[in-house]
C-alpha cells in the first residue's frame, strides 16, 4: 500500500528566512507523482509544486523547491525568503499514475511565519 508521512506537525520560521518541510513516502511502484499542496485558513487547497518520479531534476517554482531523493523515498519542500502569506497547512501527497488515480495524503505540517 502507498503511504505518505509528514513527521513535523508544526514548523515556524522568521519572515525572509528559509524553511524545509519533510515528507517521506512508501510505494513499490516505479512510476508515480509527488505534490505539495498549501491550505491556508480559507481551506482552499492550492498546488505548490509537482514532481514526476522519473525526472531526476528537482522541481522549482519561484521561492519553492523540492529535494527529491528517490532511493530514500524522501520529498522535502524548501521555502526561501518566507513571507507572511506562506503561513498555512502544507500537505505532501502522491499518486501512482496508471490506473490508480487517488491522491494519498500526509497528515500535514502547520507553517507559522514570525514577523
Amino acid at each position: 500500500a502507498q503511504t505518505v508521512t509528514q513527521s513535523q506537525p508544526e514548523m515556524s520560521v522568521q519572515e525572509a528566512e528559509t524553511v524545509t518541510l519533510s515528507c517521506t513516502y512508501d510505494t513499490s511502484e516505479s512510476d508515480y507523482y509527488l505534490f505539495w499542496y498549501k491550505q491556508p485558513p480559507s481551506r482552499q487547497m492550492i498546488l505548490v509544486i509537482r514532481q514526476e518520479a522519473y525526472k531526476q531534476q528537482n522541481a522549482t517554482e519561484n521561492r519553492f523547491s523540492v529535494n527529491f531523493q528517490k532511493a530514500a523515498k524522501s520529498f522535502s519542500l524548501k521555502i526561501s525568503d518566507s513571507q507572511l502569506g506562506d503561513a498555512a497547512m502544507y500537505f505532501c501527497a502522491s499518486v501512482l499514475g496508471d490506473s490508480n488515480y487517488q491522491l494519498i495524503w500526509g497528515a500535514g505540517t502547520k507553517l507559522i511565519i514570525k514577523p
Partner: protein
Amino acid sequence: DAGVTQSPTHLIKTRGQQVTLRCSPKSGHDTVSWYQQALGQGPQFIFQYYEEEERQRGNFPDRFSGHQFPNYSSELNVNALLLGDSALYLCASSWVRRRGSTDTQYFGPGTRLTVL
C-alpha cells in the same frame, strides 16, 4: 480562466437527511475527484469520475454516490447523513491525457457540511 467551482459553500443538515454537492471543473478538464477532509486531517479520497463513469472509489460506504454530466460537471450525493459526515468536501479536476493516466488535480474552495 475559470477555476474549479463548488456549490454550496456551506450546508447544515440533520441526521438522516440527504445532501447533494455540486462541482464544475476547471476549463479544459474532463475528470472530477471528490475528497472528504475532517478538521485537522488530510483529505480522504471518495471517488473519481471520468467519461461519466466512476473509475475509482475509495473506502466509503454506498451512502456516498456520484454522477458526472456530459459537460464534465459532477455531483456528490450522501444519503442517510451521520454526525461523522460533517467535514469539508473538496472537489478536484484534472485532464486525462490518455485512458489509464492521471495528472495534477486542482481543487475548488470546498463545501463545508455540518450534520446536526
